[in-house]
């Protein structure tokens, strides 16, 4: 914004225009909406339908101003939210134009005639644009003496969004959000005239992962959250900026709480990351932290009864320290950290492993993983940040082409999906190397490159030959390849991605599913890396770390440690004596049986956990730790961007992992200097980074096993809303999960003799699941299952994964919800 000093000649840069608003000369970029230009001058024009991230609608008419063009006043007041600036324009807002002021007062009065005026019982009261603007631009009394329009209420739009049509001002923000941003037109305008209303879209199931945003942007109290409604008044809440703990997008959030209890979460505004949106998991899934079964005190296993009993921190830490020290001095201890830690906590584990346990047997990957993946992460992902040319949300938006490889953006990183869709709505060409035209493929206007699970590397290698348009597009400057967690289940795929990136010049980003994975990689919670991207195998790097940590030279173990799988195999076979486990669920791992055996056979198990998990049953010591809201710290999102957050709920007494480990280390005569997240961050900072150079993996893909009669290749990935334990205690959210169905191609359905509406049984030697089946454009001979939804928990029921061979048959009985009651896996 440029404010003109009086009577001076203002420079108008290329692509800009000069106009006058309320007497102030202002230079504005061409195409800017008047309402924004005015805002930059500090002049706020009242509005309802206007939203900076939605296309203009001009529906509410609240923002009318007077406009003069070329010395001629326009005959009618103009909507400042739809009119763009022009050179020489003279604009008068309500501040200087009685006409604009009257027009605004008139619209406000009309908006209120049918409004129930029930502010005292409305969730929005106190933060309501209608309430605020009515006070500022409305009449103090009403001239309306007739009958108000009424509607039955509330109208459930879904299990989590409830609509009060009487409060609605029909601004269409919700419907435009759904159509434009999310691409899920689940909510629509119905009827016309004074009967026009918002309603559930006909024939479109409410399965939007983004519906909560409509509640937040509704400028009145018409859309309310089933979980929050009538629970608090905005002015009684304390708002703390926070960062979402669920996926690797790292959304800015605002957590509103009262009397030690979180009441709701809202999207924070971060143009670089989540803009003003968050997904429904990020918004609604926070009650897991107050579940009744949460650990509040440490537990130790009673030697006599064999049961866990509550105890003091002193005893628990002593028992843990003694057990771990003994194991360390014998065959050793493995550390499994899980993918949800903050950078500071993950650093504490990485340091604890090296300093207190003297091992590199540490791995954050509580999911399918491979050595090839670690090579790829080390060579291609490690150390990339927005500051050094790494792929970012904004780079995705600007990319001429994006190729998603083994990555389901909507399910795995919903905000990446929103950016992809935004980009695709402009000009970005989106390709998906996957198995079928998922909703995300459609909503990103994407091109599906379908292959049999396991066939992804071959597909990428043959891209030039079979889909030259894709490689051509990827050669465009700024093009991006996004690779997801599933790639670790496909041997040769990371190598193929690296090769494709090298040959096309496209940049690569790895988008894991969990918030803590990228941070854990950077701080060395992996067997081959020390904090700051240093290779364990690099003597100079080791001595840097030894120096910084005040260790005697040569103390750090010199060989790369075992990965998760290696740790489990070792523990199960007696090659490791103890395990330190943090939020790891065996049912997330490719072989839950192995994990369970490992926990069972490990001589000593220390579990740092919020709530009981499968590890609890085998733990000798359980140390309760703080959930994200009760601690401070930071996540590193997939971009490598640091997302710091402070403590929302102070003084609950819950301790962050880094603090627990610090004290535990002291008991073991080691100093971590991670008493607090801030201390841990400072320690990490002092160490700095020194990112290793490494070469990309060159694993070749094995030959694919061909399914025989009655067999199919399994395609599977997890959905955003599923059995994940961080979604516990939120039934309204669960009500909007996608239906649990298997998918096969039409030809495969015929081949199997599947009738419409029949159930399918998918089985392996280890178990089976039976569920309804739908036809999708999968390759023939492939069956798709959701990874961990309802009764279908692929790891637990089938001990299978993406690319496994499974038996498929028409079910003889009704779909048995075999394990509907037990939940597997973390989200």
């Amino acid at each position: 914004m440029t404010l003109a000093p009086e009577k001076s000649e203002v420079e108008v840069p290329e692509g800009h225009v000069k106009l006058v608003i309320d007497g102030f000369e202002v230079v504005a970029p061409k195409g800017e909406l008047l309402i924004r230009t005015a805002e930059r001058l500090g002049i706020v024009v009242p509005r309802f339908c206007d939203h900076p991230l939605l296309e203009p609608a001009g529906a509410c008419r609240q923002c009318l101003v007077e406009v003069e063009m070329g010395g001629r006043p326009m005959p009618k007041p103009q909507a400042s939210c739809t009119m763009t600036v022009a050179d020489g324009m003279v604009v008068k807002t309500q501040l200087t134009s009685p006409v604009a002021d009257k027009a605004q007062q008139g619209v406000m009065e009309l908006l209120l005639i049918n409004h129930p005026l029930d502010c005292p019982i409305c969730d929005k009261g106190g933060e309501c644009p209608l309430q605020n603007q009515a006070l500022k631009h409305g009449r103090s009394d009403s001239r309306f003496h007739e009958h108000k329009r009424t509607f039955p209420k509330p109208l459930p739009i879904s299990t989590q969004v409830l609509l009060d049509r009487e409060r609605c001002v029909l601004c269409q923000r919700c419907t435009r959000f759904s159509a434009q941003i999310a691409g899920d037109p689940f909510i629509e305008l119905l009827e016309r005239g004074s009967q026009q209303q918002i309603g559930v879209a006909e024939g479109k199931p409410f399965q939007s992962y983004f519906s909560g945003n409509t509640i937040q942007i509704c400028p009145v109290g018409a859309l309310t959250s089933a979980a929050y409604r009538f629970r608090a008044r905005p002015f009684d809440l304390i708002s703390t900026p926070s960062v979402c703990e669920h996926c690797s997008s790292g959304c800015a959030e605002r957590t509103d709480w009262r009397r030690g209890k979180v009441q709701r979460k809202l999207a924070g505004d971060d143009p670089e990351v989540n803009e003003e949106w968050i997904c429904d998991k990020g918004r609604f899934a926070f009650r897991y932290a107050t579940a009744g079964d949460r650990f509040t005190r440490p537990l130790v296993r009673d030697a006599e009864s064999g049961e866990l009993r509550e105890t003091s921190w002193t005893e628990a830490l002593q028992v843990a320290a003694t057990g771990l020290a003994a194991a360390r001095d014998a065959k050793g201890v493995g550390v499994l950290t899980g993918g949800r830690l903050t950078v500071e906590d993950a650093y504490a584990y990485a340091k604890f492993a090296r300093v207190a346990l003297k091992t590199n047997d540490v791995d954050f990957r509580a999911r399918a993983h491979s050595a090839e993946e670690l090579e790829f992460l080390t060579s291609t992902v490690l150390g990339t940040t927005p500051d050094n040319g790494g792929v970012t949300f904004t780079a995705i938006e600007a990319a001429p082409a994006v190729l998603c490889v083994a990555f389901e953006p909507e399910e795995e990183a919903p905000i990446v999906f929103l950016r992809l869709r935004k980009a695709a709505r402009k000009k970005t060409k989106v390709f998906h190397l996957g198995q079928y035209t998922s909703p995300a493929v459609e909503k990103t206007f994407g091109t599906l490159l379908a292959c049999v699970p396991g066939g992804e590397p071959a597909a990428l290698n043959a891209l030039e030959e079979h889909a030259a348009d894709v490689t051509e597009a990827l050669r465009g400057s700024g093009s991006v390849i996004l690779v997801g967690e599933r790639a670790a289940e496909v041997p040769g795929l990371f190598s193929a991605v690296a090769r494709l990136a090298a040959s096309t010049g496209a940049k690569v980003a790895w988008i894991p599913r969990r918030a803590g994975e990228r941070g854990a990689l950077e701080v060395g919670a992996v067997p081959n890396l020390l904090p700051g991207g240093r290779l364990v195998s690099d003597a100079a790097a080791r001595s840097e770390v030894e120096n910084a940590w005040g260790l005697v030279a040569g103390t750090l173990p010199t060989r790369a440690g075992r990965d998760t799988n290696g740790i489990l195999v070792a523990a199960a076979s007696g090659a490791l004596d103890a395990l330190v486990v943090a939020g790891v669920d065996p049912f997330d791992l490719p072989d839950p049986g192995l994990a369970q055996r490992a926990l069972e056979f490990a001589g000593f198990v220390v579990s740092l956990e919020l709530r009981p998990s499968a590890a609890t049953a085998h733990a000798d010591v359980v140390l309760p730790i703080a959930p994200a809201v009760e601690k401070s710290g930071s996540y590193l999102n997939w971009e490598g961007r640091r997302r710091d957050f402070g403590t929302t709920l102070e003084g609950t007494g819950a301790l962050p992992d880094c603090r627990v480990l610090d004290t535990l280390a002291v008991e073991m005569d080691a100093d971590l200097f991670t008493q607090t997240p801030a201390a841990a961050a400072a320690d990490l900072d002092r160490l700095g980074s020194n990112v290793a150079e490494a070469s990309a993996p060159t694993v070749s893909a094995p030959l694919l096993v061909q399914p025989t009669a009655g067999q199919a290749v399994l395609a599977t990935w997890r959905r955003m809303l599923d059995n994940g334990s961080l979604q516990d205690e939120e039934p309204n959210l669960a009500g909007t999960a996608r239906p649990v169905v298997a998918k096969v191609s039409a030809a495969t359905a015929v081949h199997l003799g599947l009738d419409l509406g029949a159930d399918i049984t998918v089985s392996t030697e280890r178990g089976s699941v039976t569920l309804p089946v739908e036809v999708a454009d999968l390759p023939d001979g492939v069956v798709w299952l959701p990874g961990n939804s309802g009764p279908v928990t692929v790891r637990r029921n089938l001990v299978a994964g993406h690319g496994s061979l499974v038996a498929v048959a028409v079910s003889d009985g009704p779909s048995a919800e075999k394990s509907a009651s037990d939940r597997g896996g973390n989200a």
Partner: protein
Amino acid sequence: MVDSLTPVLTKRWLSPRSWTIKTYEQLEGYTALRKALGAHPDQIIQQCKDSGLRGRGGAGFPTGMKWGFIPQGDGKPHYLVINADEGEPGTCKDIPLMMADPHSLIEGIIITSYAIRANFAAIYVRGEALHCIRRLDGAVKEAYAAGYLGKDILGSGFDLDVVVHAGAGAYICGEETALLDSLEGKRGQPRLKPPFPATAGLYASPTVVNNVETIASVPFIVNGGSDWFRTMGRERSPGPKIYSLSGHVTRPGQYEAPMGTTLRELLELAGGMKDGIPLKFWTPGGSSTPLFTADHLDVPLDFEGAAEAGSMLGTTALQIFNETVSVPWAVMKWTEFYKHESCGKCTPCREGTYWLVQILQRMVAGNGTASDIDTLLDVCDNILGRSFCALGDGAVSPITSGIKYFKDEFLALCDKNSAVLAGAH
């Protein structure tokens, strides 16, 4: 002067089976098309500009200029859409025209499409006009069979397909951008402008939307020339026009007359006021145009004449009321129509009509107060020029003009109520 009138647009209406291609061809039908196809499209546009033809759908926008806005050589498909929604209360010219002489519209469509370089045209007909839709369908089929539609029309190399589309019966779908949305299968609500249909209309491609009568005038211009066209009507509003007379007249119906004809002259054609009961008020161009009274009998009914007298030419739908009719009652009825037909998109029109109806109904029921008149006028002021499209403007016309000329009648309704009694503060 009325007797000097030779019908143009309606000249075939009384011929036997006037709607068939046979009759049409016998009466010069499709001769203009042959002529047009021999000319350069730009020449047709120029001729239309020269003729001074202005849109007959209500707003009177110069037709040739509208065609000229279509970007040429842009590589995009162009479309012609015929607005046959005829929703304005009192308007009854397009449907009779399409019933009696559908081929004149089709011929106009082909010439216009050729001029703007469109290969697809749609006729959006009000859904309730089933008989008319059938007749148009039949005519389109005949035209295809005769080689006037389809590929390589009359060997000119020009292709055109025409589709007759039945609307779902909403007044707003006559507004051109709502019509386009409706035609695309969406909810019929007006679009934000710009972009205008000429740059992004049907399926975001350059589109001309014209009224039935506008396009049916085109073959006559091509055959008769622009100078001939200008011999009718007035300088800035040339040409013939179909006036629809309804209400308390002896012979209601469609009367073709040159632009600028007055109600006094039209009444003469229609046999005068019914039963000799004197005229009280009338609409010059449908209910969206401010009312006139007996004082306006000599206002020349063209775009300028109506505007100078404080109203609009609209669709030349003359609804004529004699002295037996209560103005507040008529105004209430019209307002009920607008409330029913408001699309709901914008606040002033949606909420304003909802409010106005209730005030008027209360007043007509005898429960009004003088202050209600102020409220009515102020609410109208808050709608006029504040709504998203012109529907809101039209909705307040009967009220403001009704009160302007007949305030006493509104006041009389309030006689027995002091402000304290009803609708009280």
